[in-house]
């Protein structure tokens, strides 16, 4: 009885599943933000401007030029803050203050989950008049946030729980960002996309420095990063693989890219969240398992990592599109997924840390503008004249 020879798995055999494993949480995040936005803002909500934003939007009668000016100023201020904080992060990482960064990450997750999450739950309770009592509410909120902090902080926790909490943190922060005035949101998105491009690809960019530091030291950056579950290369030999925590694979592998971090300043409290804007994939080691000794093999199976900042900004784009109409939501969703697919393909080609924001955000903004200006009129006219749709 001859054993069937296993062909070496090609890139194509697993790329579908890998892509799905990263698109599913991104879509879930966007869906939740769209739901929250459409449920909680059916009434005309006045956007009270947050602290670091210059705003003329809420005043009636301000001209387009004023709004544009304020939007640009706000977004430049934001990007400048993020750049400063990222350089600070690089400095801290250079001086090996890793434990401080981890505690800070845990603290900011707690703030996001408890305070932002609590606020959003209170909005929902108000809206639907759910007669929950305060004791139960505080116990549930306390449980939710403490376990969330443990999921983010502890290195070994159920993968499902960690992934769900990361998606939830993304949803909560993205919902709060959709409360910014409209022009500011769009200017901010474009500015962050350009910043991401510069920070990762330029030689002096803070994120590139961070990646190179982490690679040279062979450490992981403490950051909020969503890591997709690795796809089994060989399902049969899966049991023999014991993933060693943090140990890089030996020898002759292609370079291993690690995620990078970026601090995102939340508006209300001046609390920064350490998030990573990049996609990177650890190595896919196809042939290592054959050299295993006594059936125990050491290796790291490939896993795509997407920074939480990307989740947040994608969801902000889709959430802001939802504030206009659902047609723009569909268009922007497709644009973002297409952009994410393109970025993943580029990742497969270049095998280094890449910025995940620019392609998706720029495509998303383009599609939003086109839909709002051109497509909507077309669809509405066709529907009202009973021609199509």
């Amino acid at each position, binding site marked *: 009885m001859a054993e069937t020879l296993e062909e070496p798995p090609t890139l194509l055999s697993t790329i579908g599943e890998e892509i799905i494993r990263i698109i599913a949480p991104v879509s879930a995040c966007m869906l939740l933000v769209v739901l929250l936005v459409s449920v909680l803002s059916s009434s005309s909500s006045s956007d*009270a401007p947050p602290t670091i934003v210059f705003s003329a939007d809420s005043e009636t009668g301000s001209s387009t030029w004023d709004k544009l000016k304020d939007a640009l100023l706000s977004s430049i201020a934001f990007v400048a803050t993020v750049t400063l904080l990222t350089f600070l992060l690089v400095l801290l990482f250079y001086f090996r203050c890793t434990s401080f960064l981890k505690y800070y990450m845990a603290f900011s997750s707690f703030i996001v989950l408890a305070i932002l999450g*609590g*606020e959003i739950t*209170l*909005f929902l*309770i*108000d809206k639907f*008049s*759910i*007669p*929950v*009592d*305060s*004791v*139960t*509410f505080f*116990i549930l909120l*306390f*449980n*939710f946030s*403490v*376990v969330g902090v*443990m999921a983010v902080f502890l290195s*070994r*926790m*159920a*993968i*499902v*729980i960690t992934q769900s909490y990361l998606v939830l943190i993304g949803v909560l922060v993205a919902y709060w960002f959709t*409360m910014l005035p409209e022009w500011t949101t769009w200017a901010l998105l474009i500015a962050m996309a350009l910043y991401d491009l510069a920070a990762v690809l330029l030689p002096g960019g803070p994120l590139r420095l961070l990646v190179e530091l982490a690679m040279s030291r062979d450490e992981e950056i403490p950051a909020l990063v969503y890591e997709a*579950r*690795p796809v089994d290369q060989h399902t049969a030999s*899966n*049991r023999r*693989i*014991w*993933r060693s925590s943090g140990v890089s694979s030996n020898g002759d592998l292609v370079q291993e890219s690690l995620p990078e971090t970026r601090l995102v300043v939340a508006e*209300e409290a001046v609390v920064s969240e350490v998030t990573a804007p990049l996609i990177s994939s650890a190595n896919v080691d196809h042939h290592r398992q054959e050299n295993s000794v006594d059936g125990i093999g050491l290796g790291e199976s490939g896993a795509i990592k997407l920074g939480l900042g990307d989740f947040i900004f994608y969801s902000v784009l889709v959430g802001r599109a939802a504030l206009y109409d659902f047609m723009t939501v569909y268009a922007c969703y497709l644009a973002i997924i297409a952009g994410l697919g393109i970025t993943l393909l580029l990742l497969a080609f270049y095998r280094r840390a890449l910025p995940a924001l620019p392609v998706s955000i720029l495509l998303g903004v383009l599609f939003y503008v086109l839909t709002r200006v051109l497509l909507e009129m077309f669809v509405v006219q066709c529907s009202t004249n009973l021609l199509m749709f």
Partner: protein
Amino acid sequence: MERREQEEDEERRHLRGRGIVLPAWPTVDGPLGLSPEESVAYARRFFRWGFALLPWLWAVNCIYFWPVLRARPSDFPAFSPLTHLRPYVLRSAIGFTVFTVLLSIWALTFMIGGKPLFGSVWDDLVMYNVADKLGLTGWY
């Protein structure tokens, strides 16, 4: 010879009938999760922290070590650390169930009983009034 084969067949059928695989990996993540030795410390830590009014942590403990909960104690190989693991997971499950039952009794009584049952205290305890009083929802 034949009788031994019969015994082996019976054992195999017995195990297959129960549909339980000996838990080589105690966590629900399989090879990506903890090894049996590390799990005991983790389960113990989760169990103890759960007493700080954290039933959800007990539930996470049960979810994480689900294969251990499902398998029967006789399935474990002798002297494996999994025999020490299982009591913690079991107690977490019991604790979670008890706490959930108590909390739901209180919450449902509050919701369904409402004002006729509690009187004016209901208005003081219900969340949207507490939020308004503490000014939690006004400042976005």
